[in-house]
């Protein structure tokens, strides 16, 4: 019986210790040393420049129509255009400019879904669509998506993407997410690709 009282007393003491009031005013004197990260910042940037990056100054060099329900996301080094799609933003669409050729990028995407690479003959037979002022290879994939970079594989995913080549670079537009989301957005994605034009 004594043991039970002890247990109760111990639990009550721990519970009391666990209740700490929230501070509303805090004195701050902490500083940190400068590091290699502390490069001269871009000062007096507008909110659009701060939150949209290069898109703020004429969306990444492209004109396009944003489909209904797509939420623009900040661009990044690897994503000139970036959108969240789906009811919870669980899918994504992004435009990247990269090197290589159409075939290597098609097979890189296929590899992310554990699919065998296509031969040059098979690559030539890929369906085509138009956008970015030219003809683009259309890629479909579904299954377990392994994006790499330490991110875990995700089952039940799908990809619809287009890849085009100019003399200087390869441009890819990739939609990836849960299969239901990707299928629901497929038409809007193709419409978006058709609306994409290089800015004058």
């Amino acid at each position, binding site marked *: 019986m*004594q*043991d039970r009282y*002890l247990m109760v007393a111990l*639990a009550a003491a*721990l*519970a009391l*210790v*666990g209740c700490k009031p*929230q*501070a*509303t*005013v*805090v*004195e*701050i*004197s*902490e*500083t*940190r*040393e*400068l*590091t*290699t*990260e*502390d*490069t*001269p*910042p*871009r*000062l*007096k*940037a*507008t*909110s*659009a*420049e*701060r*939150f*949209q990056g290069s898109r703020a100054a004429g969306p990444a060099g492209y004109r396009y129509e944003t489909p209904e329900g797509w*939420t*623009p*996301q*900040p661009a990044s080094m*690897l994503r000139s255009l970036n959108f969240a799609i789906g009811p*919870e*933003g669980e899918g994504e669409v992004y435009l*990247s400019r*990269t*090197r*290589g050729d159409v075939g*290597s990028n098609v097979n*890189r995407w296929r*590899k*992310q879904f*554990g699919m065998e690479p296509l031969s040059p003959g098979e690559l030539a037979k890929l369906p085509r669509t138009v956008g970015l002022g030219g003809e683009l290879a259309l890629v479909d994939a579904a299954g377990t998506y392994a994006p*790499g*970079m*330490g*991110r875990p594989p995700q089952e039940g995913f799908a990809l619809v993407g287009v890849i085009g080549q100019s003399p200087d670079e390869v441009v*890819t537009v990739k939609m990836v997410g849960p299969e239901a989301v990707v299928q629901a957005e497929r038409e809007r994605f193709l419409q978006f690709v058709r609306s994409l034009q290089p800015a004058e």
Partner: protein
Amino acid sequence: MESSVANRNKPLAAKVVEFLSGYALACILMLLLLVLTWLGTLEQVDRGLFVTVKKYFSYETFFLFPEIKGKLVPLPLPSAFWVGAVFFVNLALGTILRVRKGWKTIGVLIAHGGMLFLLLGAFVTQVFSERGNMAITEGEVSNVAQHYFDHVIEVTEIADGKPAKVHVIATRHLEDLQPDDERLFKMANLPFDLAVSGYRVNARPVSVSQGARGPAEEVIDGFFLQAREPEVEAERNMPGAVVEVRAKDGTPGERFLLSTASFHPATLEIDGKLYALNLRKALWKMPFTVALDNFTHEFHPGTMRPKRFESEIRRIQDGREEPVLIKMNDPMRRQGFTFFQASWGPQNAAPGDTLFSVFEVVRNPADKWPEWSLYVTGVGLLVHFLMKLVLFITNQPKRRVRAS
């Protein structure tokens, strides 16, 4: 009956010590650790590793309610940290008070010592270890890692367009803020204070022309913070907050949206002096600089399974350079820091492109303690079982004589 009476007459302190060193308590605690580990493993599938480890194993949590498949289980359980702490006391008292001392029990005593060391190592890891990552592009240098989960607000004094001094509102002052809370930070060495409100663990700054806004979301300069569900992989969360600059007398000034998703800091000008305001992952300065000379990677044929990742680096300190090769499962350990080869990028790099390498940086004073404690416990058990075996063999003739 007599022992029951004797027990009742014992002083309270003796009863407490007896209870704390008892086998019954040890069994309960081990069972609790088993149940907590099992429930935590189930819960991390839905809630993510970081959140679950914090909930189940942090010293900041005393009691918790498990969730299975998103449903709350109305069963309060103590956190594993405190169960482990009580278990340490139980094991230490049990070893001191209850285990017989003598050469015959030396193995048991060593094994108990090993287990105590293991629990101590877990405590030191939980309280004192730090983790972060350092990303470096080939040909560049870095002397800083960033924490995976800790976010801070920084106010940087600017002189001649460059950062001169950085004031930090640390994670511990922000992490308990709810969207409805407001907290005033009195900046001791700056001519203004900051009031932080609307703090969200995961949010994106969205233009009012491009996103649907809720009634509680404040618009500043055409943007608002669109809240999102916390990510299962907590390191992908991007917090955001509204910051109001206040004069020392409390007069409100400019308001800014801060977000870790922003490309540039907000700029504040007071009395002709510029300050940059930033919400970012906490930075962690290293005692040395790392230069990445070359990164190479190789995958198993036809898969994305890494076969070989290697970073050729130079560790630079006090003008001296030391070349080091960091490989998968072969980290660099220097001055209490461990650099693991974690990942690389860009993922869509073509042959010949400049790559960046990402190192997981860990500082854990108890880094090797689990390994050492296993050796100690193993030696203890080996000694104990060998002694039992020797005693059994040497006592065989006596037993035979007794039997005959």
